[in-house]
């Protein structure tokens, strides 16, 4: 089984934004093994350690799905980063 990846995300603090992010990650087939969060002005900085539930889950696809959430300003992991980053 693949090791877990850590994704660094900068996301706004609008109502539901944290739930939106966590829900997306779990719904798309990933376990969340760790979470770190710090507020930074109007934004939140979040580090998620995730692991696919099966081998078919792609961290790159998850990254793009997170990147398209409204309110996500930056996203970065070992294998990818958003264009804004």
């Amino acid at each position: 089984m693949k090791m877990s990846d850590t994704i660094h995300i900068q996301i706004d603090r609008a109502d539901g934004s944290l739930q939106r992010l966590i829900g997306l990650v779990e719904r798309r087939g990933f376990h969340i093994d760790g979470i770190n969060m710090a507020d930074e002005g109007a934004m939140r900085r979040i580090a998620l350690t995730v692991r696919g539930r099966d081998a078919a889950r792609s961290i790159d696809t998850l990254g793009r799905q997170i990147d398209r959430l409204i309110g996500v300003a930056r996203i970065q992991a070992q294998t990818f980063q958003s264009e804004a980053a």
Partner: protein
Amino acid sequence: MSAAAPALKTASAPAVMTGARLLVSSLERMGVEVVFGYPGGAIMPIYDALTGSSLKHILVRHEQAAAFAADAYARLSGKVGVCMATSGPGATNLITGIANAMMDSAPMVCITGNVPQGVMGTDAFQEIDILGVTLPIVKHSILVRDATEIPAAIEQAFHIAASGRPGPVLVDLPKDVQFAETVAPFGFNIPNETTEADPDAIAEAERFIRAAQRPLIYIGGGVKIGRATEALRAFAETTGIPVVATLNALGTVPTDAPGFLGMLGMHGARAANEAVQASDLLIVMGARFDDRATGKLAEFAPHARVVHFDVDASEIGKLRETHVAVGGEIRPAIEALTARMATAPLAIDPWVIRCASAAERHAARYDAPGEGVYAPALLKQLSEMAGDRFVAACDVGQHQMWAAQHCRFARPEAHITSGGLGAMGFGLPAGLGAQMADPEAVVVTIAGDGGFMMNVQELATLRRYGVPLKIVLLDNSSLGLVRQWQELFFEENYSEIDLSDNPDFVKVAEAFGVEAFRIDRRDQVEAGLARLLAAEGACLAHVVIDPKENVWPLVPPGKSNAEMMEGA
């Protein structure tokens, strides 16, 4: 939809008004003309402010129908559809419609009232965390906590709903925000970001196409949504590459265009599936490798490399390895590729001839024996008689697949169907929404007896607003598609599919004040369809069909598209 974010009217001096009035003004400023909705306690200030506005509010009889109607309105008009409902049950009744818009990428803004902020989180009467409940099925959602934010929230909601890959956006307004008096500025400028296609990717796509011997264009709903119908037609004509379409892409290439092989997938055309399986290059445009299109994914198009065009980068490589990814807006990307392809013709004649002869060999036949109504033939005839202004608003089931297989569609907007979600009950409210979007269109709801009853109450809405929707109700007295699967895959164990005690649908329609008549036999079909299409107002044709009729061909669930079953 993606190309045209709604234009703003000019800004005027801010005035003191309630949040509810601000909301209504904001909708007016976004160019909204029609709103589908249903009032209730937590949205009463907004309904109060609706009076005297320029918005035409359509009072449906169930909130689910408001969402379905707004979705179909958006699909036909290309504008953002708007629906509204109160808190709690009003909001939860919207959910299926919101999910439907999400799955088929329809631009929609849903406005819900909510309980006052002071009691949110206390299980107040009709309180539901609708923002939380809908998180997985919206493109975005906004809880407006301050009335001053309303114009910006609405502008943002419309922009998000319509731009890029469209989808539903929920705007939740607590009642105290609706009552609050405020001065708020209008006229924010959200930049219209357009993403240009990468010229290197286009050049790479050309290289792959020129290297292929059996290229095939596989189009999805993203082509019409990206307003790229003409661009796609020009690309197909310039290159001569055969085309297959998903359910949501039917009509993008006219049904009778040369090189069009039909729908692919579970109930697709045999020629389309054969072409996919033989192809050495799939040019995928605005499609997402849905399982109903691919069948067993591991055996889908086993010899093909993939060039994938999609405005949603997260769809590229999601289910199938992509060799060339072309992101960004799909229309300029296709146009750029067409310009490159026009410089020299492809040498793919043997492949084109092979595809065309397969299409001819497997063409549908309409010579079924007997005197009973043969639904595929009726639907084909309906679409031909209705002409180029024909718009089908389909429900979900066997009739939906027959419509997809046999109707003639001149444009992609002519086929409105619940593709991704497959939501029974969509047909009647979708027909309502489509007819509101284009009063000149010949809109026909095609429904089965199961799905029709799921939103039958909307006959009252047709009557109230004089909406001249036509309804073809194909009645096989059963849940036909489930019955078909029970016959084929569950050893004929027919469990809970019998609807032989249906009401008299002609009487039901007449009780709502809608003209209705019955078609029982094949020799009544032509005159019946003529009567239906000639009716001035709403009209329902109750068509009695054979309960044992199945949808053919069929790829069994989980099997490869190479394994198509054919009926006796």
